[in-house]
């Protein structure tokens, strides 16, 4: 009995490790020759098992050195949660006390990430854009990454979908979808008043879109074609980019800016923050959906 369990566990572990039955054979000698660089000189001096052991000990020691150094550093850092630490300085004071007056959002964090330090956040949405582009380069269907096996798998998927035996999923999604969308839009629009904002709201919308695609594949795909995806993404980034250019240019040159702060606490307040949140949210939602679509099907 125990042997059986052990055997099953080994199979499970092999499955988790991605070892298939058609795994190409790699001889232990080859594996040994390809050991990491620092241990190359040990080759031939130690047995296979000992060499592995040396590598493990080396890794563990390196990890312990890193962790130990950092733990020791913590001893010398300012106390966690203590008032009057070096971080509680004039920078924080202005962010907290002047934030509403100067920018207008009652969520002080969105003041910081979208206006005070707006350039970082624009860079961040470019990171997301780049990652989506990279995933597209890697996974979009083309002659280099599509095998007969993939095509067969996709045909099978399409067949399963066309059988329409997803009644439970569809009814649940019908019920949940409005709530998810509403919640996403709420988080998006209230980013300057409450916790939330473009990235979190966009992630919720994207998750809703993925769920919707699972239940009603064809409908979503007809709407979210590659053109629509590109259009939304580029329009959002353009809007964000040009708003930022305007804000930076007028701010740095001391010109009069048409962007006001509004009445703090109202939905239409805090100048550029809400429009930017909407733009970022659309971009994030599209990107999340695109990640899902490229990973699962290789196309939008």
């Amino acid at each position, binding site marked *: 009995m125990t042997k059986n369990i052990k055997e099953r566990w080994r199979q499970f572990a092999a499955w988790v*490790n991605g070892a298939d039955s058609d795994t190409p054979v790699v001889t232990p000698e080859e594996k040994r020759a*390809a050991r990491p660089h620092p241990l190359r000189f040990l080759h031939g001096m130690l047995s296979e098992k000992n060499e592995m052991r040396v590598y493990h000990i080396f890794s563990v020691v390196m*990890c312990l050195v890193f962790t130990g150094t950092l*733990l020791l550093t*913590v001893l010398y850092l300012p106390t*966690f949660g203590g008032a009057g630490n070096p971080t509680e300085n004039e920078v924080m004071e202005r962010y907290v006390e002047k934030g509403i007056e100067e920018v207008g959002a*009652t969520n002080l964090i969105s003041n910081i990430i979208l206006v005070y330090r707006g350039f970082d956040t624009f860079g961040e949405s470019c990171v997301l854009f780049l990652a989506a582009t990279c995933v597209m380069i890697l996974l979009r269907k083309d002659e280099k990454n599509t095998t007969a096996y993939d095509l067969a798998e996709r045909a099978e998927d399409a067949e399963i979908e066309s059988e329409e035996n997803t009644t439970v999923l569809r009814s649940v999604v019908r019920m949940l979808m409005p709530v998810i969308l509403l919640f996403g839009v709420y988080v998006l629009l209230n980013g300057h008043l409450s916790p939330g904002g473009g990235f979190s709201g966009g992630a919720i919308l994207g998750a809703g879109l993925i769920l919707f695609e699972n239940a009603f594949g064809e409908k979503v795909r007809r709407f979210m074609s590659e053109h629509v995806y590109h259009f939304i993404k580029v329009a959002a980034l353009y809007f964000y980019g040009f708003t930022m250019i305007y804000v930076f240019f007028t701010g740095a040159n001391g010109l009069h800016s048409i962007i006001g702060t509004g009445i703090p*606490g109202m939905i239409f307040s805090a100048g550029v923050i809400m429009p930017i949140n909407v733009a970022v949210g659309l971009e994030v939602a599209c990107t999340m959906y695109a990640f899902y679509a490229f990973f699962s099907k290789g196309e939008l």
Partner: protein
Amino acid sequence: MSNAIATWSGDYYQVFAIILFGIGFISLLLHKNLIKKIIGLNIMDSSVYLFLTSFGYIDGRVAPIVADPTAPVQMETYINPLPTGLVLTGIVVGVSVTAFSLALTQRLYKKYHTLNLDEILILAKREEV
């Protein structure tokens, strides 16, 4: 030593963040499976974000979202909002690089039918010759 333990228990948040970093780092080094390596990398990233947020926390204060914008805002009420904002940026970067590395892994798996990095390296070298 007892002094050190007292400091560590006071800074428990940072200590746990660093232990998490160690866990991520060791799984990056020891695991051969690419997915597990990426998970290790992700744990490492998260630990750094936790570490960074910890510097914004101040005992007994609340999250920096003003409930009543008409009243004057006192700095002593709120925690430091800056690290939170920085971590938000960091998280998005983390998501992006994870997506990128997973996409690469998918391609490598399709080519070599294995996720073991050692085997992939050997197979790639074999092709080259």
